[in-house]
């Protein structure tokens, strides 16, 4: 949304025109305007992140003052050698694989449909977006009821049509797909709105011109809509991957990472190590390792965006 709009003039400035001369004497006011944000940023993001980096090299405990003994790379070595670290990491990635493609494709399809509706467009927009405004605890409770074995809505419905229902959240094989479906229903609305905004920006003239030339709706989607949505698509994909990697609430509330740790995500492992077992130092090391994974994903996105900008 905003990224695609603001990126546009900047790119033109770099490629076509010489950079405009920097206005002089604005340093102080600029610093003044930036201060409130910088203060909050340092206080709540940069500071704690640095502190976390420091703690990751110590045996810091939550219930002891100070940093405790120096551990060097001990915490990192422990995490990398422990199956307790790798299996939640895989669970997080598995969840990302299960949720990202449907959340992008389905949101795009629904946005295309909602954009074409002639009457009551507001209703469809609202209907798809509303679940997104619910807090995670509410979503989790609704879906726990739906999934309840024996008397849940889903099992009752399946039994009525003669199918047997698995134990959605109790079976280690089904628990993760069940959480993915819940997440799909819950967060679809966000991507949907981003796509809808992207669609509004496609100039109407292109459609008019193409229909004059005899293009059908399919051809219009393939040759006009999708290429014009390129940037939105990249943005949605990256936001989605990062959001999926950050998964915690649904699992913590609906399965507590079970059954038998089959749905414990990396962030829950960090939570368990740091807050339940008091090992803040080790938990920080795991966070740093996870940060590297997210960083790698962001780097890939950056590379893609750079390429897209060159192509346009």
């Amino acid at each position: 949304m905003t990224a695609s709009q603001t990126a546009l003039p900047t790119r033109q400035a770099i490629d076509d025109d010489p950079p405009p001369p920097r206005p002089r004497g604005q340093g102080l006011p600029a610093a003044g305007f930036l201060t409130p944000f910088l203060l909050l940023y340092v206080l709540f993001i940069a500071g704690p992140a640095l502190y976390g980096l420091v703690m990751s090299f110590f045996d810091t405990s939550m219930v002891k003052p100070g940093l405790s003994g120096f551990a060097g790379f001990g915490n990192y070595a422990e995490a990398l050698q422990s199956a307790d670290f790798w299996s939640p990491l895989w669970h997080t990635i598995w969840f990302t694989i299960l949720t990202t493609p449907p959340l992008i494709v389905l949101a795009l399809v629904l946005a295309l449909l909602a954009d074409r509706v002639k009457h009551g467009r507001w209703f469809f927009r609202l209907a798809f977006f509303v679940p997104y405004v619910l807090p995670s605890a509410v979503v989790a409770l609704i879906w726990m009821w739906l999934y309840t074995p024996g008397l849940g809505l889903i099992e009752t419905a399946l039994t009525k049509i003669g199918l047997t229902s698995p134990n959605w959240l109790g079976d280690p094989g089904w628990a993760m797909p069940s959480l993915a479906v819940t997440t799909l229903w819950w967060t679809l609305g966000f991507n949907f709105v981003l796509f809808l905004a992207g669609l509004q920006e496609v100039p109407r003239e292109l459609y008019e011109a193409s229909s004059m030339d005899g293009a059908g709706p399919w051809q219009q989607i393939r040759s006009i809509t999708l290429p014009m949505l390129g940037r939105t698509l990249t943005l949605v994909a990256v936001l989605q991957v990062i959001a999926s990697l950050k998964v915690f609430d649904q699992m913590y509330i609906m399965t507590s990472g079970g059954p038998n740790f089959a749905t414990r995500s990396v962030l829950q492992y960090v939570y368990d190590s740091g807050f339940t077992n008091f090992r803040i130092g080790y938990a920080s090391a795991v966070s740093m390792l996870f940060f590297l994974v997210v960083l790698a994903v962001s780097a890939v996105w950056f590379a893609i965006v750079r390429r897209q900008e060159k192509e346009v």
Partner: protein
Amino acid sequence: MALTRRALLGGTAAAAALGLAGCSGLTPGRDPGGTLSFWNLFGGGDGLRLTQMLDAYRAANRGVNLEAVTLAWGNPYYTKLSLATLGDKPPDVAVSHLTRAKTLISAGLLEELKPEDLARHGLDAANFTARPWEAGLVDGKAYAIPIDTHPFVMFYNTDICQKAGLLDTAGALLPLDTPEKFTEAMKKAKDVTKAYGGVVAIDNDVASPWRIYQSLYSQLGGETLADEGTKVVIDEARATQALSFLQGLTRDGLMPGSIDYQGAIATFANGQSGFYFQGEWEISTFQTAKLPFSMTSFPNIFGGGKYAVQADSHTLVIPKQPDQDQANLDRSLAFIRFLLDQSKTWAEGGHVPAWKPFLDSPEYKAMTPQSNYAAAADGAVYDPDGWYSGSGSNFEIVTSAAIGSVLAGRAAPAAAVAQMRSDLTSLAKTASPV
């Protein structure tokens, strides 16, 4: 979708307001204006009984606004209790398992209870059963007031045992205190049920396999950890003996080798097994099911002259208060005393009272089957000390996984001992965070 400055500022202000509300509102904790906050982790039958006890307190203390909070059992509970206490917003009184209180004490999260304060409320050591009281002391100082002992016990179906000829003329179960007698009883019960002799939960269970193994292993005199959990001292021969005995039972089809917690309850409740092994708290389940059953101590299979059984206790603790004064302390201790005085209600849920005035009363002796296994509390073996040990802890999770694989026939006893040793060693080697 263009982001205007106005919208951004509005959003930031809203977010800031939410953030502030999160800090100042809704935080449970102490309020000097006559509110007594109490945290517990009891659901099911225990939860209902506790509610009765709290209602009685409310009726008797109109001036105190009792705020009781029930949180999810296990790690989530202890995590919240620790964080609230570290954040200077602790409840006035909280429930803790005795084995978890040890870690809270070494983390410095609990108030020491001084003898003179306890004496003012009649909470002297002499009024409690020795085992849980002494197990809760750290360097001779008291921090946790035990309300019960909950040992691992044996449930038996009286109809099935009658048919199997396992009851004496008075209708009590004949002693099963040797490996031979125990196995024989399982066989006879199996002949009656045509399914299984006994049942214990195995699959996806992070505690039950440990409980039955620990009962046998400690009867053999085995220890698992030493030096505050920094050393693993598993006795290979004894551990193998206990595990081989258990594996024999599932291998010969006397007990199911693959069954989860609810499945084990259902097997016993449906009369597909004559015996069921679990903590005494499941009493309410079978009373509700109108099953003809009784309960007794877990048999002394390997112990000979000395009885031992896996157990834990619920205790009442006072988390470290940022500004504790005498009046607050007395109100909290009086509340604890009030709950202890209702030990009868609590004992109905199966727990063996730790409060001697009730335990020694004829009223308790008349309670059956509760009083049948009261003696088990004297042989209570608590989970070993260690920051990663205690009820529902990593220690129980790791050991139960290895023991469960033996019961399921997936691993040989020696392999499971090796697995336990290696998993526990990596925990023992980790620098203690408390």
